[in-house]
């Protein structure tokens, strides 16, 4: 491999190399510093005159005399089943003091787009043990369901609880968790690690950590490494892999930073115009393939800047992912855990994962009815603040009470409380029983006769 000493310019995370032989787009690059250390980079733009390289570990310490080697191949992750139980850095080096991975294979970290024709529509219900998810926004295998949160909210606890409790009913198949931390603080990373160790989940997990003080540009490859590892475990080792990506906001910030360094025309709020495509290359790497046993399910976490769901990061994410779980500051302030606000939350794949033979025949009806009741009850709170409770009709008062009970009994649960789907639906019915029966218009009479507490008591 030829080494060039022809760096012409260094600007932010980018270096410009002159007078090279033809260099391929997206190639992996090694940069050797004066003190003998090596950094890695990737070709962003290549022409006969100049090659633009983005350096993953940051350009600190680089000068024009550094040696640059082009490897002739794209970035690859060495994979093997021994990845399980390992803690790796944001660019894939061991952080746990263990040996380097002896690769069974080396895979391109950008992956390839799954042929839509090869996809199996996701339909297997995953029980997370959290009522607001299982009952109202059901997760299925192969789905990508992000948590939209804000700073200071317990999204990490929720993610950990899901990682701990998630299971497919009646199935003993191998599962694994791949965790990618992007720009998270050392403290957060430690609490994740502690939880993984406490519950013994670490041996079924692969962890990639890019901490807040690691170079921002490394964040661009961390989720790709994690997903490459996940795809390998899923499709080569038939595992069901749950991928937790936190925090996607930091990823998007890094993307914007790179765009600015390259002097690109910015899109909305300075984020690059290709952010949708870029995010989709990450989120779309979830799914189930026909004829293969494993699956990749994604749980990305992103904090909404200023709790604004229309901010470009949650907005573009929401257009790609199959729904979202929204964590609410208001519920959190009321002391409710998990503070999931079901109204703006959604699981697009819910309908294919629930019902007879999957969860229970009344699931959809119960969920719809509770949505309608809670939405109406929640609206009435505004009215009560103005006119007082006494001015409400009997019907409205019931709805108002329903909304309160819903938050207190259905939403609220313990951090280690693992509710079965039956329990979740029973709680739902016990709340619906407080409403007049004629008001349950979303539920068939047949279901009411079968499941309504008043009828069952008889």
């Amino acid at each position, binding site marked *: 491999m030829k080494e060039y000493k022809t760096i012409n310019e260094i600007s932010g995370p980018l270096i410009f190399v002159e007078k090279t032989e033809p*260099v*391929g*787009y*997206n*190639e992996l690059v090694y940069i050797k510093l004066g003190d003998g250390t090596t950094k890695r980079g990737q070709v962003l*733009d*290549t*022409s*006969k005159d100049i090659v633009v390289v983005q350096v993953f570990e940051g350009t600190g310490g680089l000068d024009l005399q550094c040696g640059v080697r082009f490897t002739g*191949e*794209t970035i690859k992750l060495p994979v093997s089943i021994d990845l399980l139980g390992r803690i790796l850095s944001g660019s894939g080096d061991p952080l746990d003091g263990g040996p380097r991975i002896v690769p069974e294979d080396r895979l*391109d970290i*950008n*992956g*390839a*787009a*799954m*042929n*839509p*024709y*090869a*996809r199996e*529509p996701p339909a297997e219900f995953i029980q997370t043990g959290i009522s607001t998810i299982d009952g109202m926004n059901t997760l299925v295998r192969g*789905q990508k369901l992000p948590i939209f949160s804000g700073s200071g909210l317990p999204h990490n606890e929720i993610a950990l609880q899901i990682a701990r409790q998630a299971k497919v009913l009646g199935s003993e198949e191998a599962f694994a968790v791949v965790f990618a931390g992007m720009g998270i603080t050392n403290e957060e990373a430690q609490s994740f690690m502690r939880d993984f160790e406490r519950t013994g989940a670490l041996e079924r997990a692969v962890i990639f950590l890019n901490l807040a003080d690691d170079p921002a540009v490394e964040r661009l490859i961390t989720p790709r490494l994690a997903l490459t590892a996940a795809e390998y475990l899923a*499709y080569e080792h038939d595992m069901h892999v749950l991928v937790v990506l936190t925090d996607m906001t930091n990823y998007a910030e890094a993307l914007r930073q790179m765009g600015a360094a390259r002097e690109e*025309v910015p*899109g*909305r709020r300075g984020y*690059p*115009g*290709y952010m*949708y*495509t870029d995010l*989709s290359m990450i989120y*779309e790497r*979830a*799914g189930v*393939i026909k004829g*293969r046993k494993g699956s990749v399910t994604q749980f990305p976490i992103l904090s909404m800047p200023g709790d604004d769901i*229309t*901010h470009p990061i949650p907005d573009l994410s929401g*257009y*790609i992912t*199959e*729904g979202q779980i929204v964590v609410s500051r208001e519920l959190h302030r009321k002391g409710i855990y998990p503070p999931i606000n079901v*109204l*703006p939350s*959604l699981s*697009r794949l819910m*309908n294919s994962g629930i019902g007879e033979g999957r969860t229970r025949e009344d699931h959809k009806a119960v969920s719809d009815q509770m*949505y309608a009741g809670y939405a109406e009850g929640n609206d009435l709170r*505004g*009215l009560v603040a*103005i*006119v007082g409770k006494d*001015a*409400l*009709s009997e019907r409205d008062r019931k709805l108002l009470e329903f909304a309160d009970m819903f938050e207190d009994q259905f939403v609220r649960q313990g951090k280690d409380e693992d509710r079965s789907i039956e329990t979740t639906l029973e709680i739902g019915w016990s709340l619906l029983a407080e409403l007049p029966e004629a008001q349950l*218009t979303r539920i068939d*009479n047949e279901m009411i006769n079968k499941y309504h507490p008043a009828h069952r008591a008889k």
Partner: protein
Amino acid sequence: MKGTVYRIAGPVVTVIDVPTKMYDVVKVGKEGLMGEVIGIEGAKSTVQVYEDTSGIAPGEPVENTSMSLSVELGPGLLTSVYDGIQRPLPVLLEKMGDFIERGVTAPGLNREKKWEFKPTVTKGTKVAGGDIIGTVQETHIEHKIMVPPTVSGVIDEIESGSFTVTACVCKLTDGTELTLMQKWPVRKPRPVRKKLMPDTPLITGQRILDGLFPVAKGGTAAIPGPFGSGKTVTQQQLAKWSDTEVVIYIGCGERGNEMADVLNEFPELDDPKTGKPLMERTVLIANTSNMPVAAREASVYTGITIAEYFRDMGYDVSLMADSTSRWAEAMREISSRLEEMPGEEGYPAYLAARLSEFYERAGSVETLSGVNGSVTVIGAVSPPGGDFSEPVTQNTLRIVKVFWALDSKLSQRRHFPSINWLESYSLYTDALADWYNEHVSPDWPILRSDAMEILQKESELQEIVQLVGSDALPEDQQLTLEVARMIREYFLQQNAYHDVDTFCEMDKQYKLMKAIMKYSDLANTALEGGAELEDITSVKSKDDLSKVKFEKEFDEKLNTVLSAMDKEFDAIRGAV
């Protein structure tokens, strides 16, 4: 004509030393990746490449095919599933496995399959572009084989029998050979004799669409809405139930799992009109968000060209594009790689022109052969943050005649389809009035406007209710609120996942609305006659009416409910 690669930056590649014309298709690099010329400057041409460009280096060879990006049109289109540049996905799956690698080409139409061709003209017939020379029974749809628009002459030889798409079936006296297949450049509209005014509604079986905001066959409609408001479900409902002969569904930059769902579901569903599987009248184009961005830009053109081809046979075609925002974003992405001067929000300045060119390809037409056909275009728009003032929504609304505004507030309370009845509009209601008069009922326009008036009144009253509570309203206004609620819940809400309710015929829609208005009339009369509001709103037949739409024996159940309603109101009157 060969040259070399000069520069690579993502999907945009600069090539040098090869003469090109705008929109020529070129093969880039050793693997021959397909691309399209989108700019020329001196000896350099800028090419957008339809596949991943990783590893391509300057100096690799480039070949100009000197052809524009074209689609293959002929038997075999129906039931196909293509990517954005008409490569059949099942063939790609066979050739390269579950993931899409690059550098694989596959013709749009199967070259081996033989089709039974029946000529409809004989030797000596004079034919011109667009004339039908024979037919092939493709699925239940008769595929008409046409003379390409640019060809004319006198038939010298024509044969019936079994042919592949590339075999010669007909020879003109000047020696021109015609095959079952023809090619057409996607960026150029196929010619027609003239455009007609649309006068027939596209019946979709969706009450809020057919009933309140109809789109005409050959018309254009936009469905803008924030994420999670039900765009995709609405688009899929339209693809499933629209009463057109052919449906083109473009999944442009959308989710892979959703496309998988469509691919899985469509072959299982039956067309309510013909009883045949829906897939037999459908062409699917799936270019998911993680597939190459340039192919996404092309997918919309691929789709509309196929739609025009079926229109030219004299069919009614509907085209759903989900989502045109992704298409616009692909334009923006490529434009920014070209370092073009951006217009609003980074979109290229030609965004409005491209959108209007695309929607203008819809229409009800007289084809070159003199028959009538139509292409209806329904585009989903995904405005960032649900803000309708953004450029794609605004430029779309300037062109389309029907606006179905999705509302996340409605979807949050699980009111589906979550189309806002106050913000949506249709400019076709007058043009279609005659049709509704003739095929539904002369009193339909009255029912429709009465319903709209009640809904409008409801929103005004809601403002007061927000301040003082509903009990403070006079009784007749409380009744209006109740009737509005019935219209919303009984008529507008429709369950796409319910076996019966997913599709509602026009006749059923009419009867349902009529029944709600009957209640409204009876209730208002009773109220004026001095009856208690409580008694009027608690009649059992009113609650029963809410479930009628789910019944298979709709007419029977409805009549039972209506006669019960008469009796209950008789009793109320008797009590007064």
